[in-house]
């Protein structure tokens, strides 16, 4: 019974976790890595996009590393608590976390977080989702241009998952580029923002593209209309939605997730982890699974991921300044 064996395997992982706690700190050489289970911190609670990425990643990564990968949810403060705890963990490669564009780039610039780029090692980027904007199906704005035009004369409100979250900053940067402003109304999550859009409390919603396909029926009916996605080309999961560029706005933005470790992890370990991730992200089975969640596999190695974080944080710095969110 295949099902039963896999379930038994999952219980085995729990047992391994218990054992890992008992064995305590053992000296192991970087070449032998990994010799014990790897803890993966998810700095958000169960059920969100970050958690989904981690849980999708854990199983195949276990197979690639030959050691259990144990997910530990440490939610709070927009991802800052889990990452601050990671920064304090031993830099031996047995503690990693899922980071994202906003938690790695923007968050440390905003307030005392207990971590910044210098206290973390980038391992590899995993997946990305194009940023997008949606309105209610009965909204007067049919295209992105109409929305931007309206913003020049009217005071409109929008929402998205949390203050200074990836979607919030994506829209704030776009509006700044167009020289218009809109009022941001805070939400706890993308779904919370969707409620505000559907109830008419806000006029538009900024969010990762992966949130939208489930809201459409097979024949394309929906309570919302997606005005555009800020990808380079049309997104395979929603081929009918035009990109920002097609509508004459030169703006590209995506939310992405990657694996990070504390600063000072031996280079051999970084290389080993990074290549294990590359193997997983490149596999067909993983790509199939990603489709269920509407994520695009987007592997970057340690150096390229670091370059991306630095580029992203430079891009959002003026936006944060404008919003008054920059750390004093």
């Amino acid at each position, binding site marked *: 019974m*295949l*099902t039963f064996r*896999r*379930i038994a395997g*999952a*219980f085995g*992982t729990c047992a391994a976790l218990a054992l890992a706690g008992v064995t305590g700190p053992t000296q192991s050489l970087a070449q032998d890595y990994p010799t014990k289970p790897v803890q993966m911190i998810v700095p958000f*609670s*169960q*059920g*969100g996009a970050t958690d989904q990425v981690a*849980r999708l990643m854990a*199983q195949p990564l276990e197979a690639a590393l030959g050691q259990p990968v144990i*997910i*530990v*949810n*440490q*939610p*709070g*403060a*927009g991802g*800052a*608590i889990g990452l*601050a705890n990671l920064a304090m963990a031993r830099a031996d490669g047995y503690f990693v976390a899922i980071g994202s564009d906003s938690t790695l780039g923007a968050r440390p610039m*905003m*307030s*005392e*977080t*207990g971590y910044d780029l210098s206290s973390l090692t980038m391992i590899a980027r995993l997946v990305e989702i194009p940023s997008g904007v949606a309105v209610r199906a009965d909204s007067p704005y049919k295209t992105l241009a109409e929305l931007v035009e309206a913003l020049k004369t009217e*005071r409109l*409100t929008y929402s998205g998952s949390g*203050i*200074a979250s990836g979607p919030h900053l994506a829209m704030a940067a776009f509006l700044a580029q167009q020289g218009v402003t809109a*009022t*941001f*109304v*805070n939400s*706890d*999550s993308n*779904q*919370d923002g*969707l*409620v*505000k859009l559907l*109830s*008419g*409390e806000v006029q538009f919603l900024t969010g990762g593209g992966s949130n939208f*396909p*489930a*809201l*459409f*029926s*097979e024949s394309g*009916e*929906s*309570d919302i209309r997606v005005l555009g996605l800020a990808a380079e080309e049309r997104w395979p999961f929603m081929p009918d939605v035009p990109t920002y560029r097609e509508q004459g706005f030169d703006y590209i933005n995506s939310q992405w997730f990657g694996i990070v470790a504390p600063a000072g992890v031996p280079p051999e370990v970084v290389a080993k982890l990074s290549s294990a991730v590359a193997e997983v992200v490149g596999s067909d089975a993983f790509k199939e699974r990603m489709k*269920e*969640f509407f994520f695009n596999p987007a592997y970057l190695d340690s150096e390229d991921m670091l370059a991306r974080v630095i580029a992203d944080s430079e891009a959002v710095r003026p936006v944060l300044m404008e919003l*008054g*969110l920059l750390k004093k």
Partner: protein
Amino acid sequence: MDLISFADISTGLGNVASPWVMIFLFIGVIIGMIFGAAPGLTAPAAIALFLPVTYAMGPTTSMALLLGIYCSGYFAGSIPAILINTPGAPSSAATALDGYAMAREGQGDRALSLAIWGSFLGGLFSLILLMTVAPLLAKVALKFTSVEYFSFALAGIVCVAGISQGSMIKGLAAAFFGILVSTVGLDPVSGVGRFMMDQPNLMGGVSQTVALIGLFAISQMLLLSKHGEQHHAILPTQQRASQLAVLGELWRNRWLSLRSAVIGSMVGVLPGTGPAIASWLSYSDAIRTARPGDRFGKGEAKGVIACEVSNNAVTGGAMVPLLTLGIPGDPVTAVLIGALMIQGVHTGPFLIQQDGGLFVSILVLLFLSNVLMVVVGLSGRGLMSRVLNLPAAFLVPAICLTAVIGAFSVSNNAFDVRLLLIFGLVGYAMLRLGFPPAPAVLGIVLGPILEKNLRNALTVSDMDPSVFVLRPISAGALLVTVGLLYLWLGPRRRSEASKT
């Protein structure tokens, strides 16, 4: 419009009628009981923990396991609330008020039986709503903007005045202490840190569960240790209750049960709320309609009925926005979305149309988990009350240990254990000085809802406060609030004045 076709019904029933589904449903109900009953281990935590186990199962089997945990987990928090005055989850804090008082009079078994049957009725009622008027209810939920949420949360805080049986001033003070605690951490609207004392772990604020266990469980255990009766059991010998008499009692309180079920279901439908708010609202509704001779706070069965019917009615209600809009109605349903996505099922407005079979399966599974909850609860209740016969010298350390494990497991953070101790001491001081801990918990739950909705509402209206009275639903809630305040503060003040 016919929502579900006969073909869907037969597929749905066919999927459920499998031995594996039944076995996992049963396992789920047992897991839910254990997690719900242990202070600090909550139903959402159990569901998240067992989520990876479902990856290898089909959608129906995994829903069986998770819905089993969901229904019985929401009920089981009341077991320790009744027996040791230590709610297993915030939603059971209101149950402890009368439930524990009943246990102290040897009526713990009756209180437990009432809680079990009450939860069953609440679950059943909300299930019927989900089955019949789900799309309609979803529309109602979308009438609620930040303005309405604020007005309703304000009404909730005012309920404190009704709940505080001793000194109303002390009750309100405890509630405001709770609200103050809820402001710790990053400000929800502009992201500024508040009262963090250079402690990055406080950025996310104080965990509601940790504060709850500290204020109730640890303080209670400190109080017990102080009494020095280490060799005796904590409570008198418990009388067995006749189930027929319990059902008769529910029948006598049928209108109260119905009101509580409606409150619970509607709170469940509203995204961003949860069972804690439902049980407090129903409890204060029960007090509002109390008859002379009712002994609320001193072991009144109606108090247990109202809370329990209501907090389990949340289960069906919370499934309404999940299955019709793809929006979770409470913390558990948020995890369920992920569980369904792993199975390739996308929860959204078209789920019922496209996957009617699964919808029917979910309804049947919810019903069956409620039935199993009664079976497991009733057969296990003898064992539960026998725990009380243990001498305090064993019981107190065992409960403290469970509380510490529970606090740690909330976010796998040792800092929370330190917070737990602090709240335990605060709770102990509150008990010694006659401040009730229950309103403090309500303050911690409602504080963030009050704050962020007030600020969001004013952001949308460009700082114009008239929206609160111009929008009809909000105006209604505010009117009720004023009415309640008059009802509770007015006559009581006069009667107290005449006494002195």
